[in-house]
């Protein structure tokens, strides 16, 4: 096994595992779809990074994080539903990037570059992955309660806005990492598919979280192996593998 393959598998496993874990929470909030628009916000960042010759991360992270904070502020200041805010963010991301994005050079941003990931990037992904995992674990119970009724959490003098902000920032980091793995077009699938498949077969919260992470990682490992066998892009193959797992989960529904 080459060093590059080890780096690709390590990064892929971390990103897909975290995305699946957070995805279980997003499904419960009916927010799986929000990851898509956020990922598209990466495109203006990608355009700037390519035009200015920066590393992709320097373009992607600020835009996606700012997008998450922007959604958080809009959600507090307006009475608009998340669905509408997502559409606004989506259009802003795609519209502004189409003005500048050199499409021919943007393949990396569209379908990911996990097979060429560097050691430095793998270290960065590992550190961010650990931070997001523990942050998500910390807010998990309360986000579920907020979703059932905000007052169940407010009555204990807890700051709902802070929980929602940490949650959205975790989503933003996972989405930005997802751009490395499968590209901005299909990042949402990394979050939505494993959680959906796991929901189909699980009958407790523990099973739900565990199977989602297993399915996320399995899809990614399958995608990377298929990419080596068929010499195709890993990003789309990871998503196709995830979709196959989802289809199989339908036969074991609980």
């Amino acid at each position, binding site marked *: 096994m080459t060093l590059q393959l080890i780096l690709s598998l390590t990064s892929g496993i971390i990103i897909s595992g975290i995305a699946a874990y957070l995805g279980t929470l997003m*499904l*419960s*909030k*009916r927010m799986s779809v929000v990851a898509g628009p956020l990922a598209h916000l990466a495109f203006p960042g990608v355009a700037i990074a390519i035009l200015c010759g920066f590393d992709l991360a320097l373009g992607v992270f600020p835009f996606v994080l700012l997008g998450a904070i922007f959604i958080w502020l809009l959600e507090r200041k307006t009475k608009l539903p998340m669905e509408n805010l997502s559409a606004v963010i989506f259009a802003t991301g795609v519209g502004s990037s189409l003005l500048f994005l050199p499409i021919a050079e943007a393949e990396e941003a569209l379908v990911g570059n996990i097979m060429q990931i560097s050691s430095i990037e793998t270290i960065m992904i590992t550190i961010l992955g650990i931070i997001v995992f523990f942050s998500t674990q910390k807010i998990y*119970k309360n986000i*579920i*309660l907020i*979703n*059932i*009724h905000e*007052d*169940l959490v*407010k*009555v*204990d*003098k807890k700051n709902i806005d802070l929980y929602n902000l940490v949650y959205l920032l975790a989503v933003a980091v996972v989405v930005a990492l997802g751009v490395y793995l499968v590209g901005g077009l299909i990042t949402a699938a990394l979050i939505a598919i494993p959680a959906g498949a796991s*929901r189909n077969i*699980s*009958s*407790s*919260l*523990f*099973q*739900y979280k565990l199977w989602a992470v297993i399915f996320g990682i399995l899809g990614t490992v399958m995608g990377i192996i298929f990419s080596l066998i068929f010499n195709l892009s890993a990003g789309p193959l990871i998503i196709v593998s995830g979709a196959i797992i989802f289809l199989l989960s339908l036969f074991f529904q*609980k």
Partner: protein
Amino acid sequence: MVLALNVPKISNNRKQSMNKLLEVKNLKVILDHEVIHDKLSFSIKEGEMLTILGPNGAGKSVLLKVLLGLLPYDKGKIIWHKKPRIGYLPQNLNRLAVKNLPLTVEDFFKLKDIVYSHQEITNSLQSVGLENTILKKPIHILSGGQFQRMLISWVLISKPNMLFLDEATAGIDIGGDENIYSLIDTLRLQSPLTVVMVTHDIHVVYAHSDTVLCLKRKSHACFGKPKTILTPQLLEKIFGMEVKFYEHQ
């Protein structure tokens, strides 16, 4: 509106302390530039069951949230004479959100900050008349009555001495709601528990409350013992329609 009032003999030996737990003086609440409550004064004694009665839009839930510190108030005073351990069951819990997750009854108890043992959860469920076999069941298959009992048990496991219930029986069939109120009566006999309950069900007030605070839109209409103050004329004034009732002895 015709109401059949079944007034059971509530135990006379229910020991009520005469100590005031909460006092509200000249409360004014403005929400979205609209005056919801003005010059509202009442008090709650330890061990008492106070019902907040009124039609839709009278600000019952708003008042509950103000007492709990979840909403601000503009004038007046809310004085707690003792620091209570509060248990609160809000109105309209999002059952759909529960359905989106494969959440068992046991999982739901694990969402609390404090970790309770299997035995503690079982005891709490049994105190509301639920078998421990329900622990591994997904929440979304529970009936309305079972779901509501489980919620009350979820609130009671923290051993509150002050319970706030907002329309605790909404969505439960007739009969099922009576069970919930009888259950609360039983729990009050077992341990010192002060209860503030929001309802628009007049029957509940007569059958289960020590005192009633009736609210009308933008004003309060009465505060006192239900049998003394709730006359058909007053009910008509509160609900804005003729209210007839029969009291079964």
